[in-house]
């Protein structure tokens, strides 16, 4: 493991949503090519980056992620033609919400990574891990438990 990744202390947790056609395949390539990169990234494989509902991003933050990485095909290359544009638009608006909510821009990252760019997977994952290490953990205040009665409880 490279020396920069072996620092003691805070280790960020990153949830990554990768589209199966480009970015997930690139991550696979990085693996088969035995490229080393930060183990802080947990990958969720989706059919398309356009499947990333902004609720997924917020749920990841709520459940302990310090950062969220979304990876899709380069503009123009989407397997479904428009999916990556949709996630791009959503990310741009979501970033406005996150800023207002006191969550730093670096915690949400959108990257275009094609199936052949295993080295970009390595670079992006390492960069983001390093940035979040410097930024420190995301500390959301807890949400009070909802007391909505489930059906049949009374």
């Amino acid at each position, binding site marked *: 493991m490279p020396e920069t990744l072996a620092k003691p202390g805070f280790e960020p947790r990153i949830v990554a949503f990768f589209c199966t056609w480009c970015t997930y395949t690139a991550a696979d390539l990085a693996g088969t090519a035995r490229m080393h990169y930060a183990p802080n990234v947990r990958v969720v494989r989706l059919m398309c980056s356009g499947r990333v509902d902004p609720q997924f991003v917020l749920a990841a933050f*709520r459940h302990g992620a310090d950062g969220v990485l979304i990876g899709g095909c380069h503009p123009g290359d989407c397997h479904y033609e428009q999916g990556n544009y949709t996630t791009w*638009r959503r990310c*741009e608006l979501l970033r406005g919400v996150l800023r207002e909510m*006191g969550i730093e821009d670096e915690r949400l990252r959108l990257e275009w990574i094609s199936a052949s760019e295993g080295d970009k997977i390595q670079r992006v994952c390492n960069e983001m891990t390093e940035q979040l290490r410097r930024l420190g953990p995301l500390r*959301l*205040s807890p949400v009070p*438990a909802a007391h909505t009665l489930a059906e049949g409880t009374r």
Partner: protein
Amino acid sequence: MKPKVAFYWCASCGGCEEAVVDLAEDVLAVVEAVDIAFWPVALDFKRADVEALADGELAASFINGAIRTSEQQEMAELLRRKSGAIVAFGSCACLGGVPGLANLYSRDEILDRVYLEVPSLVNDEGTLPEEDAEVPEGHLTLPAFFDSVRTLDQVVDVDYFLPGCPPPGHLIKAAVMALVDGTLPPVGTVLAPDVALCSECPRAATKPQKPQIKAFKRPHEVVADPDVCLLAQGLICLGPATRAGCGGVCIRANMPCTGCMGPTGRVVDHGAKALSAIASLIDSTDEDGIATRAQEIPDPVGTFYRYSLPASLLHRRVTSAHQ
């Protein structure tokens, strides 16, 4: 004997109380069907009258407003004990409502702003409200002002949700009558249709298959065509991501939906879903275009979470106090 009910308000504007009065002649049907045992805004019952009731003696309490102070929490807990069913009445009780946008600030920021910084203020001594104060006349107390606004169901068990700002009259009447007739649905139900507002929008026929928004407009910037889908005119209408039941009253007044009925049943975070729906309509495939569209929304939280910030996944702003 007629079932007893209570109406109570917490952090709210009073519009929900108005909605009950606005039932007009239907309010007579409500009054005929139930005994109102407690309704501070209209009838002279006191907290002691509620305390004197047996536990569960009230068939239902209709509580509007979010929970911001210790007094509101105590009243919600008291009414919970005395009631068979609790109905979260209106957007604030259901989702936090407009008062819930205070979760963008901390308690201290709010008190400083209101009591120390507002330009029109006269407060030379810098007096802030205190929960306990000794004055010549004796010992005074005030309810605690919590750091965050909470929804009613973040404080007590809630049986039913009646959303809206305020809830539409026909839904209020239907809820009261279902209570009287014993035909209430399973607990946990939102007492409004579980479909998006577009399904009952008077302009639905003019909504393009997929509206393409070239620029976001704010209501004061344009004179909207009263017959055409507002999304097709570039106005941010949250109808596609908001529960139906209001009959599109705002849209009939040529104003876009701001989301007061909350999300439909399978949505966890109303603001995120509304943002998702609107963002996907942006007609741009380049960096500048998409960034410019985002800048046309000056207050994204106030736009997409206008009624639901305390109920959202993030709940409140990350402040240094929480770091």
